[in-house]
């Protein structure tokens, strides 16, 4: 799993979220477990509902990763708007 490819994919979505004041933090890229762990940061957001809804956000990040990262991976997204991580 190419960390640079993961970072590029995450940055692509993060740029989009910055417009709403949100951020995406890359917590872990683990090629041994094939796990990519991200945290959605909403501290500077005035309108949480304006940020992409959780399922859409997850799908958008996943698709961005799938375009750049070959093979299977497990995406874990800590979204404070949901009670459990996706």
């Amino acid at each position, binding site marked *: 799993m190419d960390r640079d490819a993961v970072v590029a994919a995450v940055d692509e979505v993060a740029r989009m979220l910055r417009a709403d004041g949100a951020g995406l933090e890359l917590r872990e890229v683990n090629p041994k*477990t*094939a796990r990519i762990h991200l945290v959605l940061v909403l501290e500077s957001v005035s309108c949480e509902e304006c940020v992409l809804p959780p399922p859409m956000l997850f799908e958008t990040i996943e698709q961005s990763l799938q375009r750049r990262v070959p093979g*299977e*991976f497990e995406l874990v997204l800590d979204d404070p708007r949901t009670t459990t991580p996706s």
Partner: protein
Amino acid sequence: MTLSADRVEIPADPRAQYELSLTEHWGDGVPLLPATDDAIDALLAASPYPADHVLCVLPPCNGVATVELIAINAAMAGVEPAAFGVAIAALEAVSEPEWNPFGLTTTTSSVFPMLIVNGPSRDDLGIDYRASCMGGAAGRGTMTIGRAVSLCLRNIGGQRAGETTKSVFGQPARLGFCIGEWEERSPWPSLAERRGFRADQDVVTVHGGKGTFPMADIHNDDPRDLLYLIAKSIAYPLANMYLGNPENGEVVVAINPMWAERFGRAFPSVDRLQEFLRDNAWQPIELWPEGNAAMLRSRGRVDAGGRVHLVERPDQIVPIVCGGLGSLHAIALPSFGESHMQSRAVLANPATQER
């Protein structure tokens, strides 16, 4: 290096080589690579044993397996030098009396050595343990090491379908079966660690498996429910383990990483998981027609509650974690019964070891 096996001049054309492998009965029907001295020497250089070292005697024809002969067959299979030690260790395991090589190489059953590899070299050796690890992932180690073992049983042991082996169906694993465990996604100690090895050792465990038995569920996320269903599935009424001694043999249950995570939360201890599986891997005696039921009763297989347990002990159900992230599936590797899985640490030539 001085090799002692007969030299044979063969056509350089790969297609002609393939035809020759069929007429000479050197192969399994799939194209082979030529076992040139260079290829053999490269493998021998990676072995901790000299070429004339007798590793074992392989049934059914009790052919003497020198390391040279094993290297010749490994060269034909395309094993790379770094992986040769895995093939050697696997053959040591196969030849252990408790694996029951004589029984397993001659039976009417479809049983064949199924290799499970643990340790830090899995990725470097191309041993598949993620998506499609049991067929389709195409890792070089997975596709060549198991095949080398199979060719050795054929060419050194003399295992020939319909002649020296009575296997009614054979199975796809007879072309070679070699997978790894996805240790990093397992909530429990690895198979090798549970069998007494260190996490930093490369270990191959050889299981006498009858094939791959698929199980699927798309409706239930509850770990206990899923494990209950797995237990009932592996205790299918025509399982070999009802035919012999209940204390012999193991069933491997390959669990996908997503289910493993769920099962690990419910059963942090693998011992408790195995107990749960064992306690639920039974069928009621009424399931069998009377002729079969009578035999089960005569062998003391029916408990006071009318249950016929698949195995006697929890450790006979062996969970491993592997497979892709798509969830939904588990696979059992059912047992021949009269065989105990054997594990060996992989040794390399110290002169060539880099770590």
